[in-house]
C-alpha cells in the first residue's frame, strides 16, 4: 500500500521539476517501484480473479488472470446460509474493536509507567516485561490457566484477554513515551495536576501517533487470531471469522490428502465441499475489511514516523 502511493506521488511531482532534464536514474527508480507495486498488486488481483472463476475451468486450465468462465459459486457457497458467516464477522469485529481498545489502554499505561524515570522499580518491572518476551509457559499451562483458573472457556473473553498485553508493544510504547520531555510532566505537576490527569490529558494526546500505529498492529493481531478460538471455543455462536475459514480450509486439505480418510469414509461425497475457488474467496472475505481499514490509519502511520524522526 505504501509502496503503491510512493510512485504515484513521485510521478505527480516529477514533470514540474524535471521536465527538461530527463534523468535515467529517475526512470530506473520508477521502474523499480512499479515492479515492487506489481509484485504486491498482481497476486492480489489473481486471488480475486480465481475466486470468481468457474471450478471446472480451474481444474482444466489452472489459475489464470483472464478466466474462461466467470462464476460466483464460491461466494454463494459462503452466503447461501449467511447466518454463520455474518455472526462470525460480528464476533471478529467485536473482538477486534473491544480488544484493541482494552489492549491500547493497558499497553499505554504500562509503557507510560516504564517510561517514567522517577518510578523506583523501573528495572525489575522492565525485566519482568522483557522476560516474558523471551520465554513463555508453553501451550498446556496456558490452556490450563485460561480454562481452569480464569474460567474463560467458551466465552468471548477467551478471544480478548490472551492477546491484551504484548511485551513487545509495551517496550515500543515505552520507547516512544520516554521521548516526550519529562519537563511536561513536571510543569503539569507544578500547576497542580495529579498523575491521572497528566496521563490522560497530556501524555495520551501527545502519543496519538504511536497509539494509532500500535492500535493498527493490535487490531491486525485480533483480526487474524484464530488459534485461541480453536482452543477455547466450542460454542458455534462465538466462532470468529478466521477460525471459520481456517476450518473450511483444513477440512478440505485434510480430507483430500489422506488416503486413510477415504478408507473409513463410507459414503463420502466431495461434492459437498468447497473447492479451489472457495479457498480464494476465503482469502478475499477475510482480508477485505482490513484493506478498507488500513488507509484510515495510514495518515497516523506516516505522522508517527515523522514525529519520531524529529524528536529522536
Amino acid at each position: 500500500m505504501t509502496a503503491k502511493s510512493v510512485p504515484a506521488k513521485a510521478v505527480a511531482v516529477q514533470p514540474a521539476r524535471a521536465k527538461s532534464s530527463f534523468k535515467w536514474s529517475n526512470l530506473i527508480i520508477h521502474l523499480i517501484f512499479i515492479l515492487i507495486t506489481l509484485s504486491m498488486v498482481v497476486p492480489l488481483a489473481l486471488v480475486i480473479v480465481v475466486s470468481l472463476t468457474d471450478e471446472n475451468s480451474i481444474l482444466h486450465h489452472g489459475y489464470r488472470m483472464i478466466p474462461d468462465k466467470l462464476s460466483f459459486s464460491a461466494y454463494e457457497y459462503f452466503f447461501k446460509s449467511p447466518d454463520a458467516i455474518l455472526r462470525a464477522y460480528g464476533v471478529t469485529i467485536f473482538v477486534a474493536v473491544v480488544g484493541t481498545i482494552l489492549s491500547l489502554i493497558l499497553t499505554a499505561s504500562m509503557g507510560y509507567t516504564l517510561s517514567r524515570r522517577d518510578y523506583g522499580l523501573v528495572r525489575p518491572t522492565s525485566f519482568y516485561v522483557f522476560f516474558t518476551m523471551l520465554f513463555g509457559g508453553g501451550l498446556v499451562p496456558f490452556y490450563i490457566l485460561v480454562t481452569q483458573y480464569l474460567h474463560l472457556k467458551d466465552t468471548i473473553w477467551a478471544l480478548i484477554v490472551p492477546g491484551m498485553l504484548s511485551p513487545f508493544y509495551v517496550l515500543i510504547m515505552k520507547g516512544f513515551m520516554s521521548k516526550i520531555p519529562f519537563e511536561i510532566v513536571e510543569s503539569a505537576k507544578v500547576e497542580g495536576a495529579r498523575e491521572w490527569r497528566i496521563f490522560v490529558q497530556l501524555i495520551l494526546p501527545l502519543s496519538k501517533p504511536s497509539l494509532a500505529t500500535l492500535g493498527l498492529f493490535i487490531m491486525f493481531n485480533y483480526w487474524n487470531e484464530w488459534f485461541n478460538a480453536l482452543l477455547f471455543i466450542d460454542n458455534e455462536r462465538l466462532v470468529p471469522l478466521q477460525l471459520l475459514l481456517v476450518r473450511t480450509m483444513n477440512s478440505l486439505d485434510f480430507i483430500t490428502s489422506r488416503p486413510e480418510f477415504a478408507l473409513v469414509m463410507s459414503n463420502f461425497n466431495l461434492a459437498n465441499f468447497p473447492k479451489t475457488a472457495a479457498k480464494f474467496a476465503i482469502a478475499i472475505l477475510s482480508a477485505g475489511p482490513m484493506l478498507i481499514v488500513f488507509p484510515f490509519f495510514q495518515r497516523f502511520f506516516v505522522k508517527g514516523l515523522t514525529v519520531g524522526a524529529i524528536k529522536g
Partner: protein
Amino acid sequence: MQKTMNGKSGFRTTLLASISLGVALAAAGCGNSSNNGDASPSASASGSAGATASAAASGSASPSASSELPPVELTWYYPQNAANADLQLVNDAVNKIAKEKINATVKLSPIDFGTYEQKMNTMTASGEKMDIVWTSSWLFKFDQNQLKGAFLPLDDLLKTSGQKLYDSLEKKFWDDATLQGKIYAVPNFQFSAQRASVVIQKRFIDKYNLDVSTIKKMEDLEPFLKQIKEGEPGITPFGTQKGFYTALLYGIDTKVPVYYTDETNTVLPDVTDEMRANYALAHSWYTKGYINQDAATLKSAADVYNKGTTAVWFDWTGKPGSEVEYKAADGGNDVVLVPLGEPVFTGAASTLNAISRTSENPERAMMFLELVNTDKELYNTLVYGIEGKHYTKTTGDFIKIDQTAGYFTNTDWIFGNITNEYLPEGSPADKIEQTIKMNGDARVSKYNGFVFNGEAVKTEIANVNAVNGEYAASLGTGTLDPAKYLPIYEEKLKKAGAEKIRAEKQKQLNEWLAANGKQ
C-alpha cells in the same frame, strides 16, 4: 561514559539473568510434567477403582430402574466435517432419549477434522474433564494416547454396565481395541475390509469390448491401456497418485509384512521382489506414456480422476458400492470396479470411542455408549438428526436426507454400530448385509491384535520415513527408473536403519506369537 558502561553491563546482566531464569523455568516445567505423569495414573486409578465399585453397585440394581440412577451430564468429543446449525436441537433430542433410558444427558462437542488432533492433544495434556472421546488409528491416535494414559481400561465396565454392547461385536473387533491385554475403547462396527481394485470408466470398456473378468492382476491391464493410448487422445490411460504397490496385491499380510504362506513368520524387508517387479512395471507404463506425468507430485487422490479424463485408476479400498461415489466425483462418468484380490480384514481401529481417564462417571459413559450402539432411534438421531426436519422416512429403512436443513453429518461411522442405521436414498438395499458379509468373509490376519511399538527405533523410523518421502512416490509411479534408483533407495534405507526396524519388529512379533501360543 560511566553511565553507558553501567547501562551496558546492566543490560548484559539482565540478559544473563533472564536466560538463566528461563532455563530454570524450563527445567522446572519438565520436572513438573514428569511428576504429573507419575501422579496422574495413580490418582485416576483410585478414581476408576471407586468407579467400578459404584458401577458394580448400580449394576446389581435392575437396569430398568433407571430413575434410581443419579442424573449426570456426560461430554462427548468427536470430529465432524463441518459445524451444524441445528446441533443444539439434535442434542436435545438425544438427551430426551438418554434421560429416559439411563437418566443421563450428554453434551455433544463436535470438532472439525482438521483441528481435532491438536485440540484433543491439548485437552488431554491439561487433564480436562471429558467422558467419551473418539479416537482411531489415524487421527488422535489410539495407541499413542493409550500409552500416555488418556483412556480408562474398559474390561470391568463392559462386564458391569456394557454386557450387551460387548456381546454385540465379534472378538476380532475387540482385539483391535485391546492394548497390553486390556480393552481401551469400543470399536464402531463398519465396513472394515479392504480389497485392491482398479476402477475403469465404463465408456471405454464398452468401446473396446474389455472383458473385465480377465483382469486378475495389474499386468493384465496393459493391452487395454495400449488401446486407450492409441485410440483416445486427451485421455490418460492410467491415473495414479503414489503408485500402486500394496501388500494386498501380492499375498503379503498387511498387518505385518509376512507372506501368507510363510510358516516361519519372517518379517520381510522394505524392498521385496514384488516391489521390484511392481516398480519395473510402473516405469515401463510411465515411459510408454500410460501414466499421468504429474503422478509423483499430485497431492490429492481425487486429482487423479476428478477431471474425468482418466480411463483407469487404482483403488486401495474396493468398497462395494463405491461406483456411485466415483461417478459423483469424476464428472459423472459411469465406472466399473474390478477387484484384484480377496478382501482383507483391516481391523476395527479406524474408528473407536474411548472413555477418558478424567471421566467422573465412567460407568454411565459406558451405559451411554451401549445405548448408542444398540438403540436404533438414538443412533439415527445422532447420524441423521430429527425425523421430519432433517430427514424423512420413505419406505422401510430408507430415508431421504435434506442436506440443507441444518444437520448433516455424513459420518455414520463416528458414532457407533452402523448396522442400526437407516439407509439414505440410492444406497444398495443390502448395504448392511453386504458390509456384514464382507467383514465376515474378509481374511483376518493371523497377527490380528499385534501392535508394533516403535519406541525403541524411533530415530530409525523417522529416518526411513524421510527416505520414503524422497523416493517412494517417484519410484512407485514409475517416474524414476528403478534399474538406476532402486539400488540407491535400498542403500539409503539401509543407512537409515531399515534393517534395525525389521529386526525389532521380528523380535516383538516373536514375543507376541509366543505369548499368544501361536508358534
